[in-house]
């Protein structure tokens, strides 16, 4: 990349000030050496959340899915909602890292690692739920096409084996991508770490990186290839997740718009989650110079764009339901959702997902961290309720009125949701503590780019 990307005159810079390399390294490695009480407090808090997650999972494994509120007809509910929510959140990381890399959006450099870590942890959470939600989770491996002695293969007409494979692939590629991007910085940590033990551990993970030109050349090739590999996955994973619903004939699920709709929703919630994590981090570690208003502005625009894709999908779904003339589709979209037993959840979803992003039309609001943070929280809630609306309101009133039944979550359902959030944040805190959250070498590169020296 020989030339700096064309910048708009009025756009805030991607890097404030002209710190030298040493100062930047010092600043960005500081979280690794600091002993922060706040960190410890948060660690204990999220640790409690993780304990709740482990507790509710253990209970579910021991007693069965009956501990949840699920029933017939609502055979899927909170767990699948959580699953789709987490996997959606897990989309922004790869999108920011890979998609924007390929599009040469340089502002991504300061935030890509946070986004990738978020992806990784979200996908871990997302991977737990489908297994947990099986009636007999100890047979989850039957979804893998392996040459079993029973000579029975998975059923490839179902979306679930594909889903299983897609998540596994996505996790693997995300992990590799994140790790490869981490190697130069791990070497930096190795070189700077106090104490031999830490140096050895970081050294082990740095894979002998010395910063040689050859290393950099091969690194660029590998990273670019992985980005190329990861990019289609951004689209494929959530498309396949949407198939879990779209291949059925259930009104509310049976829809061809689901793959793009789900991808847009995933990115929407993913960007929102990036904001949720980034903004407190930026403030806590005084990263305003490397994560600038420019970043916030760009993410805000992405959120707005994704929000509108989602709104389009909502309108499309409702229009098609009416246009089809189908009694059951019409009932689900025109009555059950806006006026049925879960109408409040539906309108909460509309308020969060449709109204919230409209604030981001305004540049001044887009650059205000507080506004963005509040918007991001509302969008997370909105996206979770969207999945709940899709899953539960479709199931609880389907074809035969006799089988309609209300669904009410139990404390275990809530425990799993909040527990998984706790677990996610715990992993993120550990990430902040042990790995440079902002890619040092990429920020340095930005600095040179900004100075026109690259």
């Amino acid at each position, binding site marked *: 990349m020989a030339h700096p990307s064309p910048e708009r005159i009025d756009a805030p810079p991607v890097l404030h000030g002209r710190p030298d390399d040493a100062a930047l390294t010092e600043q960005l490695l500081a979280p690794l050496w600091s002993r922060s009480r706040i960190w410890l407090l948060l660690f204990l808090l999220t640790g409690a959340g993780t304990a709740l997650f482990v507790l509710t999972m253990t209970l579910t494994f021991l007693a069965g899915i009956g501990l949840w509120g699920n029933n017939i007809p609502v055979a899927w509910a909170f767990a699948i909602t959580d699953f789709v929510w987490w996997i959606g959140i897990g989309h922004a990381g790869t999108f920011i890292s890979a998609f924007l890399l390929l599009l040469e959006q340089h502002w991504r450099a300061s935030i890509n690692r946070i986004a990738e870590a978020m992806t990784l942890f979200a996908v871990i959470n997302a991977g737990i739920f489908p297994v947990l939600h099986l009636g007999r989770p100890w047979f989850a491996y*039957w979804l893998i096409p392996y040459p079993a002695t029973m000579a029975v293969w998975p059923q490839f007409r179902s979306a679930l084996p594909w889903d299983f494979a897609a998540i596994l692939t996505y996790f693997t590629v995300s992990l590799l991508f994140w790790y490869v991007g981490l190697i130069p910085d791990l070497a930096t940590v190795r070189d700077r770490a106090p104490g031999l033990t830490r140096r050895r551990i970081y050294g082990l993970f740095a894979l002998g990186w010395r910063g040689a030109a050859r290393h950099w050349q091969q690194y660029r090739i590998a990273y670019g290839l992985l980005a190329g590999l990861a990019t289609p996955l951004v689209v494929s994973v959530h498309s396949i997740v949407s198939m879990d619903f779209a291949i059925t004939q259930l009104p509310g699920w049976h829809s061809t718009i689901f793959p793009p709709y789900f991808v847009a929703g995933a990115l929407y919630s993913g960007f929102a989650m990036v904001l949720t994590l980034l903004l407190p981090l930026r403030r806590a570690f005084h990263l305003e110079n490397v994560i600038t208003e420019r970043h916030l502005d760009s993410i805000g625009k992405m959120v707005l764009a994704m929000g509108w894709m989602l709104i389009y999908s909502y309108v499309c779904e409702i229009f098609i339901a009416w246009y089809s003339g189908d009694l059951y589709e019409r009932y689900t979209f025109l009555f059950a959702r806006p006026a049925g037993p879960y109408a409040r959840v539906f309108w909460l979803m509309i308020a969060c997902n449709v109204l919230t992003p409209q604030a981001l039309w305004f540049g001044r609001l887009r650059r205000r961290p507080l506004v963005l943070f509040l918007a991001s929280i509302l969008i997370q809630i909105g996206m979770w309720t969207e999945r709940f609306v899709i899953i539960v309101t479709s199931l609880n009133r389907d074809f035969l009125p006799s089988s309609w039944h209300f669904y009410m979550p139990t404390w275990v359902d809530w425990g799993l949701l909040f527990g998984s959030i706790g677990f996610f944040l715990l992993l993120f805190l550990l990430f902040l503590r042990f790995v440079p959250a902002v890619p040092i070498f990429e920020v340095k590169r930005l600095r040179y780019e900004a100075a026109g020296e690259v």
Partner: protein
Amino acid sequence: MSGGWKGQGAVEGGREARGRRYWRAADAPPAISTARPWREFPPGAELPPDAVSRREFLRLAAAGAALAGLGGCFEPPRERILPYTARPPEVTPGVARYYATTMTLGGFGTGLLVESHTGRPTKVEGNPDHPASLGATGVYEQASVLDLYDPDRARAPRHLGAIRPWSAFVDAFAPEAGAPDDGTGLRFLLPPTASPTTTRLISAVRDRLPAAGFTFYAPLSPTDPAEGARLALGRPLLAQYDFRAADVVLAADADFLAAMPFALRYARHFTDRRRLHGPDDAMNRLYTIEGVFSVTGATADHRLRVRTAEVGDVLAAILAEVAAVPERLPGGAPPGLATALERFRATGGRERWIRAVARDLIEHAGAGIAIVGERQPPWVHGLAHALNALLGNAGHTVRYTPSPLAEAGASSHTLEPLVAEMRAGRVRTLVILGGNPSYDAPADLEFRRALRAVPRTVYLGLHENETAADCAWFLPMLHYLEAWGDARAYDGTASPIQPLIAPLYGGRTADEVLAVFLGDVGRSAHALVRETWRAALGADFEAAWDAALTRGIFEGTALPPVPAAVQWDPLLRDLATREPRPPAGRDSFEVVFTRDARVYDGRFANNPWLQELPDPLTKLTWDNAAVLGPGTAARLGVRTGDLLALRRHGRELRIPAFILPGPAEDSISIPLGYGRAGAGAVGRGVGANAFTLRTSEAPYFAGDLTVEPLAEMPPVRLATTQSHWSLDGRPVALEATLTEYRENPDFTAEMRRPPRSLYSPFTYTGDQWAMTIDLTVCTGCSACVIACQAENNTPVVGKEDVLKGREMHWLRIDRYFTGDAGAPDVVMQPMLCQHCEKAPCEYVCPVNATVHSPDGLNEMVYNRCIGTRFCSNNCPYKVRRFNWFDYNSDVPETREMQFNPDVTVRARGIMEKCTFCVQRIRRAQIRSRLDGRPLGGNDVQTACAQACPTRAIIFGSLGDPASEVSRTHRLPRSYAVLDDLGTRPRVRYLARIRNPAPTLAATDRAATSAGAEGAGAGAGKGGGAPPAER
């Protein structure tokens, strides 16, 4: 099979080549020693092992180990034992055998065939040769097998709480037989019985101890029908109805399709006249007048809602209309009748309805039936007898026989004199043989307090219940599946009760206890029954006895009809005293105590199947409630679940309200049998005890109830299995009137539009299993639901899980209300796995756990299922059931003995659903292969089809074009539910045809059903929504 065997008598089912071979009698040596009284079974066929004698059992039980007795049943003996190398010839593990026996309910017997697997009775079927069954069963019969294995059953005789041997009881009471005082102060209390042996022993006791007294009491066996017959006919005769010959039926508060003696037979014969093969077939017409919404009312073509107390007024008005046209009656009308009833003729707004019914009855004189519910007072029964006599129905559709009940019509059928004697201290010894009077006696009699005044009390019961707690002596009773006895059906047909299994806990029958008072201490029930029949069966007793055990009836014992004529003078005198009831006051309500469709009078309260069975109309499980109509609820300002305080004569009952469309306004009905403090672990404290409001002067209904909603109390969560009651305009349960059907026989054609497919259709060959369900004859009685549960080891989940929507029934009955919310029409739709040819569940299963069989079954591979529940989400019928917990892990050991060994007991975390009773299909296929003959299209019956009293469910193979199911699948009114989804279900429904009276159809019906009927003939009703456009 008569005479084919003697002595050993064991003919293995598989080898016997001729005739029907599915049941036979067990061998029983005539001489029974007292030491080992239960040796009538071949060795190895029963539990517990012979090594455990009664004495040993009692010793173990006395040791205080609660489960030691049970555990003892399964422990091998300590001595060295050897396995048998030659199995008993009559027992083949894996091959079920059927034995005929009889279950008694309300005093009358219903003949059954009971399936036995290696000595364990597992499933009850109806005996086709028995007049009360005709091969069908009801919910009580189906569920009774579980009661046998109830772990809460009483296990030992007790005196003042201490376990005592049976001999101690004998020693204490046998001297009564020779008491010098002729039995003064000795009283027996038992439910009404028609058993020939019990009747014989009662007369013997009366002969021997002339001062002893007998009282017959059961809470749901009113004396009003007998008194009504006495009033109208001069004698307490029983009316025997022949619904096969009836074109028009008028049921006045009579739930004859579900809740009367002989209901199974009535249901079958009644629906035989509604089974339409084509548009030219005739159909009977049913009018009901009722306050409580009953199964019969839900089936009716016209249902008039009036309060239960006003039913007689309406019937009187109909009789007046009929009597007003003597020239059109076969025998004219007695003078004075029309004038005596004149004041009933104008009853607020019902004239049109009444006139139409009267006209219809007159037009079908001699081919109609007027039937009155048992709880109605005698004069209303008298009206029906008069109506049947005037119309010439008597002698054709209605015949009269003496009652088979012991001492029928005598004063011994009232409880009050006995209680008065007890209070006065004139009862020295009270022997209660069954029933549960401490729980179910009228509240004003204060039976428990009276019981305390009796020095010596004995109670024989299945459970140590409320009455057992009040009596000094307690004797465990034998369940009918482990006892010898006999019974009579409603028409008098006698049938044997033969045991299927040796007593699980020991116990006695009422006959054996009665024999003690004859000084006959050594006689077993078996000997007593044989003694009864020895005289009756004549010279070749053994052969006739064996034949009776084999067939399940004693031939030719039905009571012959007797001539009976209405005694007009006493009837007219009585009618002269009757006044039409004024409209109810604003502050009082009517209360009706009803027989519960699930626990009867409370005796089945400890049966988990029945507790979890949804009531046919309310769909309520695990509770009872005060059922009231929407208007009454609005007046009271209550919603379903709100707690009500019901007060009558200083008594109060707190019970939640349940709003059901259809009951008469200002009338509240409460099912009896709940709130039992003395039931076992399952039934204890379930629901509210309506007996606390029920007094002897108004045991069935009363008009002076005050109701106070307890607004400050938290509402009760009532577990219903169906929360949405309307079809919402969806074409799911289709119906039309007979006229519409005749005009357009193909009216379901709109619903037979499977979408076009890109693929060429699959060709099916060989047996292709399928089902037809005729909505016209389905009454919603729910016998199929319990039959399915018993056959398929379906677990019970409990109230909490029903509230969450997790009931496990493979077959449910969807009940939809259409039309006006006050007086709705009802359609019942049994819903089960539709075995779709293109099953949506199959392609979404990630592990191939649900697949299609070559003979058209949608199969569940339990071992392969990992529980994604994707299949359920994609099932448009939502008939799949998931094991949310390990529901079978805490089934008591004894109840496990009921499990059908041919059906897998499912583990936690897997899906299950209707299999079309695949085990029965495979068994029949194996049998046909062994026999070398092809399997016919009608040769397999599912459990639901077999139990169905009305034959609404038809099962068979489409591979056989002559099979019943093939024929009904081709009928024009057949349709598949949600056919437009392209699932190609193998279950087809025959649309419900109603037969409204032409004079009433145009206005009254249409007025109450929002005009949906005319427009929506092909589209289902409700809300008047247009048919789906797909």
